């Protein structure tokens, strides 16, 4: 790892503006680090030439005094975001050779602010997974390993490439997306910071759709301040996404370091699950103590419908996915597998183009939306969703500023873990603490808070009021200051 790739975004930004080094030097440092880390399989496409060109343009803008907020900062982009003329396949075979003619709003915002693109990052196929193992391009290795072990661990998912790349210092920060926990769970598994913003804070335009009422993009970064800097850039009101909300994007960085004295932090009883590992329980208690010591008031709250969020999610998300993924039919883009007639062409294309988990979810979604079952499944799930949202609203109405929970029920597990892959529902349970937030449309941040007995990172989650991401950064910074920073030992380069 070269010295420049050790810098946070905030540090690199300040050094670039003072002329301490050039954006092209920073880009070269990351390009070498990225190339040396290929064994992690975090990047599926590297774009070093584009990075060099963008960095040179950044140097010119810095020289002219026209630097943007992210000028010269090298980022990795999850393969879910459309990047004009560059491989965009949601890590699926069905989008074989797809190169969009347009740029997603999220990435367009980043380039507008001066950021530099290093390449496209690995992910679970169509963001369906919690381990990055459903990717057509193979699993990503977590930069973290248990103490005294050489076993490869998953980085979590679906934004596994994003989280691994940030943890391994092969990008300064990364874009990610979160439909049920896909930013926060991999952030927790890799000792990085990830925030899922409020639904509507970030435009979904040009982001490959999974479950449209749940999908939201956000950043993964090395610390809370960097996450705040990145969210400020990617969040926007977008005429091209009618669900993007017309509220001004605040300066999230400005609140970092502010006292949390007098804030009310809710601790939900229902997140204390049976069989929760002692490490997680102890970490949660530590987090409570840190916030109390910082002057916050700790209150016990109840979110009674918590345990129903995950089963309801596994109706809503597959239902929406089955509709969204109907467009992959071998006609307009991507893979086409011939057949005797047009229907068999569709069937052959979709059988070969989609992986097992995506096929399974499309089938669940098709079933729950099929004639005679719509009310029993989809409408029921949307009613449960209303109740989940009301649980949160009750707590916020009682004056709770944010809710503190564990981010995941365990630390990172092994690649090809037998127990985890035995039945799909086991893997789904990874999202038990994060999925409620998507169902209610709220913002949630995962902050690294400690290591387990094996030396693997664990995260805490803060859940906030709608559009109050600023408070999450403010409290997240307190957790970060108390917990310290966690870095994986470099074994990969």
């Amino acid at each position, binding site marked *: 790892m070269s010295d420049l790739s050790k810098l946070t975004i905030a540090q690199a930004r300040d050094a670039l503006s003072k002329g301490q080094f050039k954006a092209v030097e920073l880009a070269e440092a990351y390009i070498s680090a990225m190339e040396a880390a290929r064994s992690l399989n975090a990047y599926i496409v590297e774009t070093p030439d584009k990075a060099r060109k963008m960095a040179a343009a950044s140097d010119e803008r810095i020289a002219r005094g026209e630097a943007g907020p992210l000028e010269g900062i090298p980022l990795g982009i999850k393969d879910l975001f459309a990047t004009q003329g560059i491989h965009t396949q949601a890590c699926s075979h069905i989008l074989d*050779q*797809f*190169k*969009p*003619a347009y740029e997603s709003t999220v990435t367009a915002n980043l380039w507008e602010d001066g950021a530099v693109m290093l390449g496209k990052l690995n992910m679970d196929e169509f963001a369906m997974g919690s381990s990055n193992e459903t990717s057509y391009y193979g699993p990503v290795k977590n930069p973290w390993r248990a103490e005294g072990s050489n076993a490869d661990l998953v980085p979590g998912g679906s934004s596994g490439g994003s989280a691994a790349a940030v943890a391994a210092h092969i990008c300064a920060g990364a874009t990610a997306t979160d439909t049920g926990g896909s930013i926060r769970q991999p952030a927790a598994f890799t000792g990085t910071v990830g925030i899922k913003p*409020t639904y*509507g804070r970030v435009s979904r335009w040009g982001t490959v759709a999974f479950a449209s*009422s*749940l999908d939201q993009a956000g950043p993964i970064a090395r610390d809370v301040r960097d996450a705040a800097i990145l969210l400020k850039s990617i969040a926007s009101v977008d*005429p091209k996404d*009618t*669900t993007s*909300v*017309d509220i001004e994007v605040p300066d999230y960085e400005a609140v970092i370091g502010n006292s949390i004295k007098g804030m009310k932090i809710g601790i939900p009883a229902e997140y204390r699950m049976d069989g929760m590992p002692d490490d997680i329980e102890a970490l949660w208690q530590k987090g409570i103590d840190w916030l109390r010591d910082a002057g916050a008031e700790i209150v016990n709250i109840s979110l009674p*419908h918590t*345990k*129903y969020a995950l*089963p309801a999610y*596994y109706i809503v998300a597959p239902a929406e996915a089955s509709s969204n993924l109907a467009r992959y*039919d071998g*006609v*307009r*883009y*991507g*893979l086409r597998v*011939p*057949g005797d*007639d*047009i*229907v*068999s*062409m569709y*069937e*052959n294309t*979709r*059988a070969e183009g*989609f992986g097992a988990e995506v096929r*399974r979810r*499309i*089938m*669940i979604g098709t*079933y729950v939306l*099929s004639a005679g*079952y719509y009310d029993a*499944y989809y409408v*029921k*799930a*949307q*009613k*449960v*969703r*209303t*109740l989940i*949202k009301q649980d949160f609203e009750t707590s916020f109405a009682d004056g709770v500023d944010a809710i503190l929970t564990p981010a995941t029920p365990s630390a990172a597990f092994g690649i090809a873990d037998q127990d985890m892959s035995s*039945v*799909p*529902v086991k893997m789904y349970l990874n999202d038990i603490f994060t999925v409620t937030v998507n*169902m*209610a*449309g709220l913002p949630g941040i995962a902050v690294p808070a400690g290591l387990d007995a094996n030396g693997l990172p664990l995260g805490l989650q803060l859940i906030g009021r709608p559009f109050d991401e600023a408070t999450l950064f403010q409290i997240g910074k307190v957790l970060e200051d108390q917990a310290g920073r966690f870095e994986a030992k470099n074994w990969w380069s």
Partner: protein
Amino acid sequence: MSVDQATVRRIARLARIRISDNEVPKLEGELNHILGWIEMLEEVDTDNVEPMTSVVETSMRLRADEVNDGGYADRVTGNAPASDENFFMVPKVVE
């Protein structure tokens, strides 16, 4: 509720995904496991609860009814596996 093998075949047909005969029993087991787990929702009393239609309360924005994009059929068809003069090419559907 659970699915049998005929239902698995029907769902696959509706979803336009070809499945082989030996995949059917495995899918039947997996789908039933997931559907069995989802049945937990029956415990929840949802009488008099409105189904969620929008997670964030907003009113739909309107814009002027005018053409603001388009006019590049070549780019639209540019990624197609088969196209001819800006038309998507598909197997014959009308005899």
